[in-house]
């Protein structure tokens, strides 16, 4: 990431998962930690998310999930990122993430996964470190 500017993170929700509680809480948390949050809202698709990530020049893509749709959209998202040769780290958080889900999606390429009860400080720290490591020599 460019030095001297705040970390920029995109927050999005895929498909018809319409629960926004987690996304709002995390958006506030990251904003309070000094990051710039671009909240894309609901009804996202991999295409919409990747286009917005490019346009906004974000350091991290954050996905909020409270239904299982993300499991299938993640595959499509990684394919699209690969196709466009983009290496933006993807983090996923949500109420439906179990331990096994975390392992499964991290194996697919998710850089960090946060289930229910995740520590706020840990979320901020992990996202910061992902953004700062990215693009570093």
């Amino acid at each position, binding site marked *: 990431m460019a030095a001297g500017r705040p970390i920029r993170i995109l927050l999005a929700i*895929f*498909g*018809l*998962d*319409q*629960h*926004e*509680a*987690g996304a*709002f*809480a995390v958006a*506030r948390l990251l904003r309070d930690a000094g990051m710039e949050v671009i909240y894309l809202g*609901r*009804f996202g*698709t991999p295409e919409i998310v990747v286009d917005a990530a490019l346009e906004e020049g974000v350091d991290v893509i954050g996905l909020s999930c409270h*239904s*299982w*749709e993300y*499991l*299938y*959209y993640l595959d499509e998202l990684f394919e699209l990122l690969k196709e466009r040769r983009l290496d933006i780290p993807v983090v996923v958080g949500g*109420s*439906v993430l*179990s*331990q*096994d*889900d975390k392992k499964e999606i991290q194996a697919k390429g998710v850089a960090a996964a946060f*289930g*229910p*009860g995740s520590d*706020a400080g840990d979320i901020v720290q992990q996202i910061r470190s992902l953004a700062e490591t990215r693009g570093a020599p």
Partner: protein
Amino acid sequence: MDVIGDAPTMSAMDPDHPLARHAVGNTGVSICRFQDFEDLYADLPLNELTFSHSLPPGAYTIAALHRIAKRRGFDPKELRGSTILLPAYCEDCSYQIHMPYDLRMRLALDSVEFAATEMPRFHAFLEDTYYISDGGLNAVEEMALGFVEIREIVRTLIERGIDVDSFAPRIAILVNCRMDLFEEVAKIRATRRIFARMMREEFGAKDPRSWSCAITAHTSGLSLTMAQPVNNVARGAVQGLALALAGVQAVEISCFDEAYRTPSQDSHMVSLRTQQIVQLEAGADRVADPLGGSYFVESLTDEMERRILDMVEAIESKGTLKEVSESGWFRELFQNAMTRRAEAIQDGSETQIGVNAFEIPEDEDNLLRDHSASKLEPCWDRIDEIRRFKDDRDAGAVAEHFARIREVGAATEGNLIEPIADALEANLTQGEIAGALRLGVGEAYDPLGQMEPPA
């Protein structure tokens, strides 16, 4: 029996919508056409059972049930059950149906008006305060928003010239039940008081049945945790007891695996057995209002009544319901409630066992975990089925009814239920009818910009 739609159905969207692709059939039933309703009720004696439908906007269900009754040769007046109506709030919490306020309100009013004469035993007017409150609203906010909406619907129906006693006996409220036992009991007691006074004194209802409202309840999904899922069984028992002590007419205890996913058949059975234990072993429903007269419960009921009424007055003083809704005030309230709840759990001001108190390491938290974490796959076949169905139907009839829905949607007079029933019978889907209605009022056919009109 309880019918809950999957995410596309709840959003008035067909399974072949691109955004529905991974959400079909695994969180509820997929319903988008007349045949789906016929299949759903096949072999079930519709005139003997009651069905509660969480299928917004409700108008489709009423239209379809009415036609099925006629086709089966019994009088629609025998139909019992309910549908939810959420004209003021459904765009701002949970599933959006992407319709403007006036259209949502018209669908609600037309549903109640139609059912009052055509299906008089059916609760077409179910105010679902569960659906609006489980993002994190407190008990006062839940009931205040519920009453604001009930009052607006009743006032407008009376303005249409409809006798209040023709529909008021069939108003029901579906409430939430969180973990604070006494507060939830007091909330329900206060709700009955407010409803009775309002119907009698303010709206002039004469029939005593119009003064009492049926109250049904679901226990809060938000109160359930992924950590130590077996604790959710205990939570359900406490909530079931609270609801029995409050004297609700029907209960559904949310299932222990609900923090993970759409509940399994096994966890549903545990919930049902919990209700049966509360009723038949503990005898919690033996007398009406067993906590009446308790100093604590009476004073808490007075306090809840006052706070709910204060909030109703505060909201109504902001302008018409349409103005307040369109100003985004409700959306902000829902959003703030969500963050407020998340912060209360994070900072420990609200105790949640296993989450911010008495936690155990995740690798030791195994009881009921495997059961809870098993997943249901989306029904992708259903998408192809609906695509084929759309290709094979009578295009002329579809075009004719699409134009008619668009026309009646644009008109300000006339009840929408019969034209919707005709369109469903002509194989228009719910997503298409929603789109035609939107076009009628000058909105985009598909607000998410992915689907084209069928005609």
